[in-house]
């Protein structure tokens, strides 16, 4: 039901034609910036494996922004714009389930962006996948574990937003933007300064993108050798650990933040949205 509500909100803000146009143009505009930057740096060497790795990684990273921001934005939207969060909190459906449902609607719209971007790459930028390198099982398991972890991260962010009074609407985008640096989407984690690398290794994003790109494109290029020594199984095990760990973290954070929000009377507060 929360997903249905989220979808109505996401898709009904304009007429269907404009919504479809926006859904296609927005991700392509983002991808174009990356492609132009890459072309300038490499003098248009689009056939290099590194380009495919960067392009697909950045396309998949769109899921991070969609899901994490979707949940936290749901809190802001319901509380401040529609003034409904207090009623939704007081329904019998567990609050975490409701928030995750709002995240699922963003996953659906985010999926349009991800796969339109990839399709654009296949058609116009010669992103090619050798059939022998495609691992459907690895792709499905990696996608499920990664999305579950992203949902937990989104829940953590949504829980924190519950306890904040101002500037909550930008938090999701800000966090997703900051995490891009640590994800290995556009450059290898090994290129980060040594003191920042532990943070990147402590986040699931690098592992997840590695699994997803391996499942679609095969072994990583030399420029992205951070996890070259890891087998697919080891990466999946790490992802499973992250999924479980972040689920526990999300449950704990939500409990603490809801408690705090009830203590401070913030479930129905309206700021300066």
């Amino acid at each position, binding site marked *: 039901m929360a997903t249905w509500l989220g979808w109505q909100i996401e898709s009904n803000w304009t007429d269907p034609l404009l919504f479809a146009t926006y859904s296609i143009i927005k991700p392509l505009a983002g991808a174009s910036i990356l492609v132009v930057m890459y072309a300038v740096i490499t003098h248009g060497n689009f056939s290099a494996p590194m380009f495919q790795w960067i392009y697909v990684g950045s396309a998949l990273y769109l899921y991070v922004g969609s899901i994490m921001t979707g949940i936290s934005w749901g809190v802001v939207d319901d509380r401040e714009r529609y003034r409904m969060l207090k009623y939704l909190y*007081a329904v019998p459906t567990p609050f975490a389930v*409701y928030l995750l449902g709002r995240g699922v609607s963003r996953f659906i719209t985010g999926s349009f962006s991800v796969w339109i971007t990839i399709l654009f790459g296949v058609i116009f930028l010669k992103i090619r996948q050798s059939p022998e390198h495609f691992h459907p099982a690895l792709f499905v398991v990696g996608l499920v574990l990664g999305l579950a972890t992203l949902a937990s991260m989104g829940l953590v962010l949504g829980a924190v937003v519950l306890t904040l009074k101002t500037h909550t609407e930008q938090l999701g985008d800000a966090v997703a933007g900051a995490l891009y640096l640590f994800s290995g989407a556009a450059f290898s984690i090994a290129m980060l300064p040594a003191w920042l690398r532990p943070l990147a290794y402590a986040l699931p994003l690098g592992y997840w993108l590695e699994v997803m790109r391996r499942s679609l494109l095969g072994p990583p290029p030399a420029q992205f050798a951070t996890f070259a020594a890891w087998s697919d199984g080891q990466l999946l095990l790490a992802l499973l650990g992250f999924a479980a760990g972040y689920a526990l973290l999300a449950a704990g954070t939500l409990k603490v933040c809801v408690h705090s929000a009830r203590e401070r*009377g913030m479930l129905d507060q309206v700021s300066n949205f």
Partner: protein
Amino acid sequence: MTDLSVDVQGLGRIYKTRGSPGSPGREFSALTDVNLQVRRGELFGLLGPNGAGKTTLIKILTTLLSPTSGSALVAGYDVAGESRKVRPRISMVSGGEASGYGLLTVRENLWMFSQFYGIPSGEANRRIEAMLEVLHMSDRLDTKSAELSTGLRQKMNIVRGFLTDPEVLFLDEPTLGLDVGASRDVRAFIREWMKEDPNRTLLLTTHYMVEADELCDRIAIINKGRVLACDTPENLKKRLQGEAIFQLEVTPVPAAAVTSLESLPGLHKVTHHEADGRSRLDLVLEEESALSSVLAHMTGLGIHLLSLTKREPTLEDVFVELVGTSMEEMEHDVSGGA
């Protein structure tokens, strides 16, 4: 099922504001040692001016806000420790706000909520249509709620509260901002709903005396976070039975004259309203014989009597008796005399 739908013991709530450099944080007590028991099947009213603590109490009882002290049970469950058991048994509507998803139709808004409560879709649609019919909104079923007037949107929200057939329903100022006709519809709807099932309990807050008097089985008068009295409307009014209440219309009365009236022997309370170039004085006298000295004093001050009515005590008189000033004056003071 417990006989007490709401059982509040020694409830307190303190709001803290965070300090800043040069300005220390402050504490504000919204509720102090509140004790209330609402029986199953009762239509109970919380009557008090804006800022009295009514909404804070509703928020605590609906699990949105934690109490600072004391305890509150709703449908037999502790709102602080057993909130998950409380929620399926309650529903809540706040009046005077334009909440709701404007991009959804009236039916979709209501149906969505019914699904969060696990009501089968067909049954939910049946209830939605029946309730909207009673509130004269059947023709708006497929209208997007953004296109509704504030009053119709509020009616839609009221239906949302009733739709799930809660064991205990909380209505916070349900008729705030509604016109006379819509308020009448809502009050009739509330009465009918309560009649349908003797196990339903409804707790409503209001600052409209007539609404509380007309609807409620029992009323708690609340002011500055404290419950001052709790009884049936009739029993509350009986407090003033030994006193004589007169309403006078007179030529304009200066503030100093009101003060001098207050000191007259035999005059228990006086409230003063100005309207249309006239003054209205509500006098609560210890006994009827005190009236002649009051009238003589006013004549001496150059105030001329235009009309005089003896009337039965109202809840407004009870409020004045308990608080020392009328609710209207209190709200006028709170809003800075605006």
